[in-house]
């Protein structure tokens, strides 16, 4: 199937999907905390744009509320709070050492391939656009997990967690044109509470351990 066969809206959505996936790769490669948070905000903005496009093309007006929530939470509230926190804890200059950057990039590329492979057998996805959006959202979720396991700073783990949430919202919006309103509100509430709790934890960890390196959290073991 050819890209130009698709409607304009579908082309825009696919482009946005590609950009979201690209920002996930940027997050994985970025080692400075402050820039990392800015890229995360950019990914939120792309999600917001996708939601808007779908809301207008398919006439799903309840998605506008969902778009507003994304804009408020993922583009402004969470990144700004994180930025404040990073400044307050004075870790914004800290450069994180990532295990082996090229290895992680290869792993990430493999995960994207795997996501396409996993959604391949689904018959109803013969339409190019939907198949891509589901595969891309799965890839974003998996890349978020990779970000969590490859970094030591608690702040980056939270960015990874929120990045997974972006992937999930993208799946809900792009593949199914939005979950029922009540579910979207519930999910947004959970994200908000989670963001606040993460903030509380940063301070608790910082107070007790004197650092935000999760490597230091190794007191509890499976067997003694």
């Amino acid at each position: 199937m050819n890209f130009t066969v698709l409607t304009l809206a579908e082309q825009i959505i696919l482009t946005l999907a590609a950009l979201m996936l690209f920002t996930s790769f940027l997050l994985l490669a970025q080692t400075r905390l402050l820039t990392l948070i800015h890229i995360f905000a950019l990914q939120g903005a792309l999600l917001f744009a996708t939601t808007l496009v779908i809301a207008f093309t398919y006439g799903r007006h309840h998605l506008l509320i969902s778009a507003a929530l994304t804009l408020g939470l993922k583009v402004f509230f969470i990144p700004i709070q994180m930025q404040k926190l990073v400044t307050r804890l004075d870790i914004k200059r800290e450069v994180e050492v990532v295990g082996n950057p090229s290895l992680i990039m290869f792993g990430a590329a493999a995960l994207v391939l795997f996501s396409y492979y996993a959604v391949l057998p689904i018959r109803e996805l013969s339409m190019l656009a939907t198949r891509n959006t589901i595969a891309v959202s799965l890839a974003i979720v998996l890349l978020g997990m990779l970000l969590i396991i490859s970094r030591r700073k608690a702040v980056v783990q939270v960015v990874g967690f929120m990045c997974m949430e972006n992937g999930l919202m993208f799946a809900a919006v792009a593949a199914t044109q939005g979950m029922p309103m009540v579910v979207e509100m519930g999910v947004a509430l959970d994200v908000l509470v989670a963001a606040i709790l993460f903030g509380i934890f940063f301070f608790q960890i910082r107070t007790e351990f004197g650092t935000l390196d999760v490597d230091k959290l190794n007191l509890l073991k499976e067997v003694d």
Partner: protein
Amino acid sequence: MNALYLTLLLPLTGAVVLAFCGHKRIAGRLNLLFCIATFITSLRLAADVFFHGSILTPQNFFYVDAFNVYLVLLNSFVGMTTAIFSSPYMAHEQSIGKVKAGGMRLYHSMYQGFLFTMLLALLTNNLGILWVAVEGATLATVLLVSLYRTPKSIEAGWKYFLLCGVGIAQALFGTTLIYFAAVQIMPDNNQALMWSVLYEHASELEPTVLLLAFVFLIVGYGTKIGLVPLHNWLPDAHSEGPTPMSAILSGLLLNIALYAVVRFKMLIDPALGSNIAGHIMMAFGLLSFLVAGLLLHRQRDIKRMFSYSSIEHMGLITFAFGIGGPLATFGALLHMIVHSLTKSAIFITVGHAAQVCQTQSIDKIRGLIKTQPEIGWGLLIGTIAIAGLPPFGVFTSEFLLFSATIKSFPWLVISLLFGLSVAFAGLFRHVQPMVFGECPTGQVKVKANMWPVAVHLCIILWLGIAVPDVLAGWIDQATIMITGKGVL
């Protein structure tokens, strides 16, 4: 119908009220009062379902049938008995300076909030709200795990939060896939996540999408059940938080996550026309059962040890639901009740034992039966019950599960028996010296309320000797709902 809304509203009101006065001295009593009221309304709800059949509210928002109502009743009952224990226990923790006033406020408010999210997860008909509620249960308890603000408890809280959050995100992806499959065949998008509607159309849903969704769902909710290898958060969270929390986390929350998986299995089986979902559950369950049994031996913390025992039992129940026949399902449903009651009784006793010896370390807890006989006996009888010895209820349900396994997968019985004896040895190896060992100096008696333990153990004994007709009929109804056939 009103009973349904009250069952949800009471704990929610409790959470709000206790957020303001949770630090006062009456807070423990107030907490108990809310729990008793919730228990009464859920009794009423259970009676409604028993006499008039399933309830579906307008717009299909809540759905109550024999399967979830017995869990609602179990939840509010254990919530109530744990609240009886919690009141003096937390007062003692506050008096020795482990928790401050703000912590008590958080604790009491979130106790009710936790009960609310669990009841919402059980009663809702909307699979999206089910996810929101299960995630809400994590959020409500995560600060309680780190309530004591020790480095260990903060580490446990962080692990619990991150692992469960990441895990449960997979479940949301699975739910989205189910929704994706449903909107292809259903005109009304708002009904496409309603379990009762989906169940009617289950055979029309696209099987490849559902199978992919189920893999995500079992990984997501499985993290919450504590299935190996997704279990790492569980022993930490259960051992570092306050003991009443351990009791309801172990006794109730794990059941809720498993309930979600079984609900999804009911949707997926007719669409796939095979038991492939069941086989996935069997593999996870058996692995958890065996690994947790072995890990029991190497624990030094008494609460950690019993949380591995919880993983073991949840593994067994998951395995049984995976087998899927009427007998296995009946046994699994019964096992959910007896495990909840026994495990919460054990955690209550363990909480007192830890206060007597001022430590949770197994090596330092000795001679309980001399210092405070009721705690010693409670721990011993509770352990006998949880290890599956007759005449207690766990024996009955495990016997049913084994019979069902012999019928369908005879070779697997060997590994089940192996796991069971390993776990048995692991439990008694640690519990025997704690109860009968040489009594060290410096142990003091504490004010212990053993009534909840006695009541739980009596019910277990009763279920072990003769399951009452009402309950058996009830579980049988749920079995018919899940498998299409009953055993009675």
